């Protein structure tokens, strides 16, 4: 028994809570011109659990006064700096922030809200916690714990014989062993050292250990250990330990901001987190909370009036844990970090992980996928099983992954389709074939290609005879139409002309790893990719031919607040700006004239976007990948068992994509046209050069300067070069060079 006492003291002295890494979303940057309405701003503050008040009190509150919002910002720790609590006034017009001012009335050019905590990386035994220093604990909490759980905590020596006797008396009457009579120290011992099985021998050991601890440590130490250690709830396989995390888990805000009824609720939960689960047994918990309040008043911890007021307050618990639970995104974060960190570093070392996740984009992606899949399910039913889907949203210029949805049950921490569903990319491959064609210098947007039957004899004597989706054969068509309408035969012709190795090499340059198998069927997208890999490929197209490794983690900060590792933006040029610009303009035509045109009914008018649909064989996979000036979104829709969906990319994934892009409220795609590329008017159906007014089928395409395109008869083009026309061309170039 003596040995037990010594060993427990030693263990406790060297105690290190396993501190799971805390994962944060990207902070919202506020600046004049940012497109946020007062309602949006209030929503963002509520997401961070700022409380709306009429008079600003402590940090974590805000006040709305017409178009002016005053915020008492909390202190915040960002990846690159810390900031103290401060007052901020935001003047927001109808559509955007007009100005920001500090407490002294000075203009603030840019300021961040604190990053939203989106989860933690806890070890396999499931213990998750946020450890608090005694200074971070409101004094009401220890007072309330003593009043309700252990009245003689300050005076007893680890065990409380009086309380035990009373508990035995109650137990005898109830006919079973119940919790109770244990001091806070005993509860701490039980949680920290022992399993929860209650036997008499175990009770004895617990008592001995409690006495040993009490002899060696101050009451303040033990109280702080208790506040950080005790079990307060269960969330799937994640065990909520300590009041710091419990406060986030039940109320979504720091413990320091809880008021009397909220603290009383947490104290009520201590007695049995499952029996008194506030989300499942609200009535039961309410009754116990009010019992706690009554006890606090009786022991003069709070006044009778305050307790009575608090007893009238609702529970105030958030409907879902913490309100920000993004398992698919966290999955990506974990996988990113496992390349650089051991599991123990992540689950024990108290790291802060700063990610690229943008809660607004994540919400838009989840909402659109859930709603559109429900609608599509309604159109076609497949053996009782629902359609599934996945979404990845990036910021092309930085490669930041700002949203990931791994399935329609967005809160389900299981199969993550965005990262693990490896499916045929179908026509998503076509832009890379046409990019290869543009790079070769032998093709441009107006080049006529042949949409004609293909019959390839493969090794082994089999024949490959692909068809168009419509089963039609269209004959000679310009490149712009072949891509916009996703014509298979024309594209296969181009791909075979370029050669499979060339096309495979383009895909590899844009990040497909390993490179695809060089089979002819590759040209129609018999290449399996995950939605995340598709996003990597298209990010390079949306970023002008620059590849960025897609990034979920921006920085890892150590427990001491020092940056441990930064993951800066990286770019690699993988294609010429000229070729990618020409291709991107073709992808804009896909949206305006081709398989993406239905999106414009959903998107804001005038928003310029580029994209491509993808449908794999027998409609098993429905894809859409596309970009605005600010965002790239990839959507996959299909069944988990790979059954045909009956939906093309345009029918299945496109509406999901369009709703997400509309909700993101991004800017138009408007890459600057490289020197060496000119705009030219072309007839969509024939590829002939036209002038405004001489064709009702005119598209303006990006063409290499000096591209020679036959003019449409009757449009006023000469087919012979005159000295005058040569002179004109030269002088135009000359002026162009001077003006710019």
């Amino acid at each position, binding site marked *: 028994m003596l040995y037990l006492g010594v060993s427990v003291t030693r263990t406790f002295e060297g105690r290190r809570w396993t501190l799971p890494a805390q994962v944060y979303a990207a902070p919202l940057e506020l600046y004049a011109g940012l497109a946020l309405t007062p309602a949006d701003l209030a929503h963002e503050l509520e997401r961070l659990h700022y409380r709306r008040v009429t008079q600003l009190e402590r940090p974590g509150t805000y006040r709305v006064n017409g178009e002016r919002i005053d915020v008492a910002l909390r202190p915040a720790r960002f990846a*690159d700096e810390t900031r103290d609590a401060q007052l901020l006034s935001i003047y927001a017009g109808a559509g955007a922030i007009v100005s920001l001012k500090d407490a002294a009335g000075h203009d603030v050019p840019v300021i961040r809200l604190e990053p939203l905590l989106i989860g933690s990386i806890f070890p396999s035994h499931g213990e998750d916690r946020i450890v608090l220093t005694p200074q971070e604990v409101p004094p009401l909490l220890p007072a309330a714990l003593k009043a309700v759980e252990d009245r003689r905590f300050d005076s007893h020596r680890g065990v409380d014989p009086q309380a035990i006797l009373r508990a035995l008396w109650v137990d005898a009457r109830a006919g079973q062993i119940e919790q109770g009579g244990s001091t806070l120290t005993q509860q701490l011992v039980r949680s920290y050292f022992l399993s929860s099985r209650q036997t008499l021998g175990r009770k004895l050991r617990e008592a001995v250990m409690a006495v040993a601890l009490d002899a060696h440590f101050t009451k303040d130490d033990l109280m702080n250990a208790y506040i950080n250690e005790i079990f307060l709830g269960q969330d799937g396989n994640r065990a909520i330990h300590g009041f710091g995390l419990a406060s986030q888990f039940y109320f979504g805000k720091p413990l320091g901001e809880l008021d009397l009824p909220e603290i009383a609720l947490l104290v009520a939960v201590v007695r049995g987190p499952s029996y008194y689960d506030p989300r499942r047994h609200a009535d039961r918990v309410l009754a116990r909370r009010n019992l706690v309040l009554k006890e606090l008043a009786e022991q003069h911890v709070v006044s009778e009036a305050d307790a009575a007021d608090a007893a009238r307050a609702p529970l105030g618990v958030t409907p879902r844990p913490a309100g920000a639970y993004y398992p698919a995104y966290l999955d990506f974060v974990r996988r990113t970090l496992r390349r650089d960190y051991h599991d123990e570093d992540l689950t024990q070392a108290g790291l802060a992980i700063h990610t690229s996740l943008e809660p607004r984009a994540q919400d838009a992606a989840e909402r659109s996928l859930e709603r559109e899949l429900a609608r599509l399910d309604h159109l076609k039913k497949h053996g009782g099983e629902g359609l599934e889907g996945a979404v990845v949203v990036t910021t092309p210029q930085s490669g930041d992954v700002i949203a990931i949805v791994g399935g329609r049950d967005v809160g389900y921490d299981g199969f993550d389709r965005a990262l693990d569903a490896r499916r045929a990319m179908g026509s998503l491959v076509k832009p890379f074939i046409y990019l290869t064609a543009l790079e070769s210098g032998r093709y441009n947007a107006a*080049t006529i290609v042949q949409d004609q039957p293909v019959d390839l004899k493969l090794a082994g004597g089999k024949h490959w005879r692909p068809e168009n989706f419509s089963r039609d054969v269209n004959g000679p068509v310009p490149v712009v139409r072949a891509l916009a309408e996703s014509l298979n035969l024309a594209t296969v012709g181009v791909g075979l002309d370029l050669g499979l190795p060339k096309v495979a090499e383009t895909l590899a340059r844009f990040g497909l790893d390993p490179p695809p198998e060089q089979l002819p069927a590759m040209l129609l997208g018999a290449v399996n990719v995950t939605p995340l890999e598709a996003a990597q490929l298209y990010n390079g197209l949306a970023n002008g031919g620059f590849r960025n490794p897609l990034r979920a983690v*921006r920085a890892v900060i150590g427990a001491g607040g020092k940056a441990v590792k930064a993951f800066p933006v990286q770019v690699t040029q993988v294609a010429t700006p000229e070729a990618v610009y020409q291709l991107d303009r073709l992808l804009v035509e896909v949206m305006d004239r081709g398989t993406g045109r239905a999106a414009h009914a959903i998107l804001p008018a005038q928003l310029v976007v580029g994209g491509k649909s993808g449908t794999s064989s027998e409609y098993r996979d429905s894809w859409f990948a596309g970009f605005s000036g600010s965002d790239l979104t990839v959507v996959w829709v299909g069944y988990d068992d790979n059954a045909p969906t009956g939906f093309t990319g345009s029918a299945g994934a496109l509406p999901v994509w369009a709703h997400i892009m509309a909700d993101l409220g991004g800017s138009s795609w408007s890459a600057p046209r490289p020197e060496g590329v000119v705009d030219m008017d072309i007839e969509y159906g024939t590829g002939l050069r036209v002038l405004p007014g001489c064709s009702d089928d005119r598209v303006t395409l990006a063409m290499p300067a000096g591209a020679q395109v036959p003019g449409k008869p009757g449009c006023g083009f000469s087919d012979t070069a005159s000295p005058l026309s040569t002179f004109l061309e030269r002088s135009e170039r000359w002026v162009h060079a001077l003006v710019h």
Partner: protein
Amino acid sequence: MRTALILLVAIALSACALHGPLPGTSAAGTAVPAGPQPPTVAPEHPATPPGRPAQMGPAASALLAQAHAQANAGEYVAAGATLERALRIEPDTPLLWVELGRVQLAQGNAAQADAMGRKALALASGDGEAQAAAWTLIAGSLRARGNTAEAVEAERRAAALTAH
């Protein structure tokens, strides 16, 4: 001078209309047909779409100033993080990419500096000043990698753009 040139071209273009319709060229070919060049008409769309901010906004400017202070203090990682904040607000501003490239170069990451210089160039179409800054950065990156001949060429390009 510039007005006169534009006038000259305008006259020339109107002459083009007088050039008269002639029977069209051959319609369908599988590739670009070789042959005489038709007259080029003036581009219908401006090279740079309207609305692109020529000047950095106050938020990005403030962050750029902060990044300069951090870089001057040798805090390159922090300077990079601050520039990334600015780029999230203005991803298409070439000078911010040049600045990020300079921070990379200061940290000895010449290859990234070069790539960021080229990213800036791609965004700087029609903006001589930004192009010059990008070429200067690329020259620095080439020099850092011992590629003197190419560095001199990049410096020449930068100088030519600045002289304009």
